[in-house]
């Protein structure tokens, strides 16, 4: 039994933000039925990575990761029958998650006002780039756009380049903006579920990706409005002083020396070199002022060190110093292996796939892969026949019509 096994969810979403929200709830035990368009299915099926780079609807890494633990049906919601079936499914569920454009949702008659008339207890979570209203609400967005408009990109790059102001704001790798939107959607959904427990009334959750992300750069906002500061990207900005991404013989490390204690201990790790006793580095203010010089000296020492030994020595003295891993090192990490972090799924069509597991360990309701991501339309019979009472013949007709 999972923490949320009492909840039934219909996930009517595309790509990442909707499906990740669905995944989070599914991973916590909710029953999630994923609704995809017949034929192509969710866009993430074409995204990859694919084994040997050969695109295949059932083998996209992104799709497989995002959609474990869900049931899958196909429905052409633009058709009359398809829309009816989707409405039926929603009426039987507690939660509807969707990430379509507000206009499309309204045109299809799936807006909250309409759906809640038939189902007053419905919690509907709408995840959109800018929200359901406002001057930008119709704007098109994708992860890059969301990432940059939220200001997440503005603080990057923060180091490692000669002149930050020569470089454009740098997006993060992987589709963080979309993931964060899905995660925010999940927590907002749960809030609505709680509200419903108290009153029996459902709720509409209007999740604006822009808003959810804008809250992640808030120190910029505080700086701007409280201190009246202009936070331009400068090399001397917080993360780049008193920290160092350094090169060892056999890898890279990241060390944080932003307290007197860390610095003193780090100096010990380096074998108490004479240069560290200079007044240039005698206290935090001096070190911040002269950090470029300190970096050069540290880098000179580090280049001959072994990464493993350096990290162990630092940790023995309680200095926050850890490796800069590629996913290869991370995948082979003893620590993550000891925690059984990675999960594996094995199915005929796909073979064995290993991927990051749940980032939490619940003591009473532990996570597990109950089922791998559904094949396109895999549970049409189970759901449409089993729960809605359609016959197999009905399904055959629907298939012929392109409804499923």
């Amino acid at each position, binding site marked *: 039994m999972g*923490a*949320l096994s*009492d909840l039934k969810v219909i996930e009517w979403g595309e790509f990442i933000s909707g499906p990740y929200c669905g995944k989070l709830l599914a991973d916590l035990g909710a029953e999630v039925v994923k609704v995809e368009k017949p034929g192509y299915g969710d866009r993430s099926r074409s995204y990859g990575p694919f084994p*040997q*780079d050969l695109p295949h609807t059932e083998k996209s*890494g992104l799709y497989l*990761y*995002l959609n474990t633990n869900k049931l899958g049906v196909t429905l052409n919601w633009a058709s009359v029958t398809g829309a009816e079936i989707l409405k039926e499914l929603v009426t039987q569920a507690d939660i509807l998650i969707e990430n379509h454009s507000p206009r499309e949702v309204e045109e299809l008659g799936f807006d909250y006002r309409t759906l809640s008339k038939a189902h007053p207890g419905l919690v509907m979570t709408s995840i959109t780039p800018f929200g359901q*209203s*406002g001057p930008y*609400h119709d704007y*098109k967005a994708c992860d890059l*756009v969301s990432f*940059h*408009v939220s200001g997440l990109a*503005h*603080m990057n*790059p923060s180091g*490692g380049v000669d002149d930050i102001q020569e470089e454009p704001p*740098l*997006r*993060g*790798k992987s589709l*963080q903006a979309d*993931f*964060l939107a899905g*995660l*925010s959607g999940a*927590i907002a959904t*749960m*809030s*609505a579920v*709680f*509200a419903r427990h*108290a009153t029996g009334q459902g*709720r509409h*959750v*209007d999740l604006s990706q822009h*808003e959810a992300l804008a809250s992640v750069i*808030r120190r*910029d906002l505080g700086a701007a409005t*409280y201190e009246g500061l202009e936070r*331009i*990207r400068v090399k001397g900005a917080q993360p780049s002083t008193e920290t160092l*991404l350094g*090169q060892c013989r056999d890898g890279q490390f990241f060390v*944080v020396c932003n307290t007197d204690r860390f610095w003193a201990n780090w100096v010990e790790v380096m074998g108490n070199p004479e240069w560290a006793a200079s007044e240039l580095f005698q206290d935090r*203010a001096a070190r911040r002022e002269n950090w470029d010089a300190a970096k050069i000296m540290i880098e000179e020492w580090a280049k001959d060190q072994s990464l493993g030994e350096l990290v162990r020595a630092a940790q023995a003295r309680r200095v926050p110093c850890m490796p*800069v891993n*590629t996913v290869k090192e*991370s*995948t082979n990490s*003893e620590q*993550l292996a*000891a925690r059984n972090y990675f999960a594996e799924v094995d199915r005929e069509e796909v073979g064995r796939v290993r*991927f990051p597991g749940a*980032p*939490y360990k*619940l*003591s009473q309701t532990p996570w597990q892969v109950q089922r791998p991501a559904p094949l396109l339309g895999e549970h049409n019979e189970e759901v449409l026949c089993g729960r809605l009472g359609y016959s197999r013949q009905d399904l055959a007709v629907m298939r012929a019509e392109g409804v499923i």
Partner: protein
Amino acid sequence: MLSALRVSYELENPKEVKRAMSALPLEGIRIISFTNGIAGPYAGRLLCDFGAEVIVVETRKRLDTFRRPRLVYPKDTEPDFDKSWSWAEYNRGKMSISVDLKKEEGRELIKRLVELSDAAIDNFGARVLRGFGLDYWGLREVKSDFIMVSMQGLGQTGPEHEYVLWGMNLMPLAGLTYVWGFPDIPTPTGSGGYPTDYLAGVTAALMIMAAVEYRNRTGKGQFIDMAQVENAATIMESVYMDYTVNGRLQERRGNHSPYAAPYGAYPCMGEERWCAIEVRNDDEWRRFCGALGNPPWTEEPRFATVLGRLDNRDELDRRVEEWTANRTHLEVMEVLQKAGVPAAAVLDGQDQANCPQLAHRGTYVRIDHPKMGVASYPGVVMRLAESPGVARRPALLGEHTAYVLGELLGLSEAEIRHLEEAEVLV
């Protein structure tokens, strides 16, 4: 239509606030916060915004990172731990009590508070609460259905779990920093922000809510062990799977995409002004060209297909930059969006404060603080139309010690005085 209700409260009287908050989803849930920095506090703040009563356990003997006198941008000559806008942002709306956990009597107070609470959030170092007997196993003795989420960097188990980590170590450790940067530079740049802290915060809040849901259904509490590095890795699935499935290590590629061009942040008029543009297919390309007025260069055959645009990316970027350089970032966004092309101005803090979309949604609220005066804070991030949540002001350190001890725990004035004299309430 979204209710535009925005309410800010002065925490004059906790009972009044309680009454006002009674319509909120998490009303009646009390959470103890053993937190520091961003990740733990952010989790608590989200729960607080939805009506939970969150009590931060602080001490003057060991200030939160963000309460410590700041060296970088000191506004006043005298550092004051109640004048930190960072602390205020992450801890807006919570109560603050000052208790020295190193003292036995301090720990007893916490245990008494646990009897009246539902859950706790912990992002202290792995050994800290354990050493005080205030970890989940200790607190479960006090209240059998208690819920706790611990969110250390590496979790609560494993050979390295007692390692010392800061937020900045998480991205390099998870493999995210390695792929964040420019291809022609040997050192990855990583991020100046702390996305992983926020990620961890939101996930922890979700965990608490799921655990409360489970407890309400079954009567059982539970312990959630959330390693922040594992959290960071969950949003990198493609990078991981390319390695586990294909044995391939992805490299840094700046702002480029293997699937789309134009793609990236293009310099606009003014200093440090950029607009992000993504053209994903031929349809968007045609719209893009139309938005530019169909200049002759856009009709070159080499730009006509996606593959062609990717192959000639550098030249394409140059051309686009020529166009964007003569327009403001907001103009570029407007013109392209009108044509149906995904584009967004890169907004900095000031822009966010003035953004019309965010203003429409009431994302930022003005809150008055006894020592810092009026400033803008992010409001409730995730909005329910009927119960939009309440953004309340940040507390002064230890502001609610008297209230919690007196009203909640029922201590007499004499008892409180004794604790003060014994230096338990510092």
